[in-house]
């Protein structure tokens, strides 16, 4: 049975392998359909009951705990930032249908921020989160490497009274790159880890978050496709390409020391795993281009992603005096 447009909303993030085949050439849902989906897919943090994971969390081994905390921290910082700034986009939307949908996204992002904060407090036992400490500028790759450009885009929307190009540029950076590339990759990996480690509340909560983000991404794809078809093709391509370079830097995360095993076999395996994860994230960025009618810019985007990663890897070695473990390969 072919997927309905509503199923495709969820499918975009859930099934990477079939993503391209199922979505290509299809009509993406309009904002009203996404709003309807939001009503049906509402969920409550209280129902997830994050405290269920407390016992299992205490039994986690060092590496797993460290990886999970780092991932949850980044997700929390991203969600808090989005929840603080999305309203500017809402104020300058092109239509009422867009406003109604984006208003649901504001509610979703608030819920996500709260979910991650509750989880970090009540399950992981953290006294404060990175955002609560105001430490994101020192501790978050996203805050250091991507947030300044997004903040500038949002401010531009406000300063230019909702200028169409500025608004769409912000949507590209918000919905397509921040949510569609960076957050989606982090959410999927974190959910896989949660599942592997038996953290049922985290697994459930992340499934809900991913479903919400899928609607947000779809909205971004719809809006950007409209901009591309409505005379802003080159402008949207340029924003996307530039943002992808920054996204490549974020995934490398040069200012945080990566776990580097002292045993060569483990180091080689770690290197291979990291490279595979980055490749998957890059492919997600390239797939989105095809959905918004910017097939011609795949090579340029790929090149900029690679450039962003190279720059960040060089910065990592400069900061830490050692190559990033992603460069390790089996002999």
């Amino acid at each position, binding site marked *: 049975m072919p997927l309905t447009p509503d199923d495709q909303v969820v499918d975009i993030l859930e099934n990477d392998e079939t993503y391209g085949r199922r979505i290509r050439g299809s009509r993406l849902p309009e904002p009203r359909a996404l709003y309807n989906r939001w009503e049906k897919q509402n969920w409550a943090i209280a129902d997830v009951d994050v405290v269920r994971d407390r016992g299992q969390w205490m039994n986690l081994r060092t590496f797993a705990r460290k990886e999970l905390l780092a991932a949850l921290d980044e997700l929390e910082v991203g969600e808090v930032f989005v929840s603080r700034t999305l309203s500017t986009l809402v104020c300058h939307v092109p239509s009422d249908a867009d406003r109604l949908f984006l208003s649901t996204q504001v509610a979703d992002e608030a819920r996500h921020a709260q979910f991650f904060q509750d989880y970090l407090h009540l399950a992981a036992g953290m006294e404060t989160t990175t955002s609560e400490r105001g430490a994101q500028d020192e501790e978050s790759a996203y805050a250091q490497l991507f947030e300044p450009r997004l903040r500038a885009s949002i401010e531009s929307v406000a300063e230019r009274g909702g200028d169409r190009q500025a608004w769409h540029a912000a949507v590209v950076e918000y919905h397509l790159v921040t949510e569609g590339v960076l957050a989606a990759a982090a959410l999927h990996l974190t959910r896989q880890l949660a599942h592997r480690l038996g953290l049922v509340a985290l697994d459930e909560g992340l499934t809900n978050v991913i479903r919400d983000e899928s609607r947000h991404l779809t909205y971004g794809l719809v809006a950007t496709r409209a901009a591309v078809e409505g005379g802003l093709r080159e402008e949207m391509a340029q924003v996307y390409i530039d943002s992808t370079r920054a996204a490549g830097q974020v995934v490398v995360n040069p200012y945080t020391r990566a776990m580097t095993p*002292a*045993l060569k076999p*483990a180091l080689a*395996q*770690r290197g291979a795993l990291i490279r595979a994860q980055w490749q998957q994230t890059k492919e997600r960025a390239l797939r989105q281009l095809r959905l918004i009618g910017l097939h011609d810019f795949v090579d340029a985007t790929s090149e900029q992603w690679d450039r962003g990663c190279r720059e960040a890897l060089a910065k990592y070695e400069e900061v830490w005096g050692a190559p990033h473990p992603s460069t390790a390969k089996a*002999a």
Partner: protein
Amino acid sequence: MTQAPTSHEATAARVRDVVATLVPGGPREVCSTDELVSDLGFDSLAMLELALALEVEFDLQAIPEDQAVSMITVGDIEALIAALVVEPPAEGQATSGS
């Protein structure tokens, strides 16, 4: 006369203890011929946890360039760690009882 265990044997035993506690399905006895993946169920996450635990247990530091890259069996890990931490006997020192 019973021979005292060599440093190599003692190190190998410690390695097996560490591996045994980290087997994904739950702690169990392991032997040198056990394969980490196919016999003991180690996935990539568990392998990294094992590497970290071994670093702590044996205070491992920099990676020598000639360090072996294969880590298929428990015995491979024993050999790898022994090469890093066991000192060869000093010249002229007996290596076995007479």
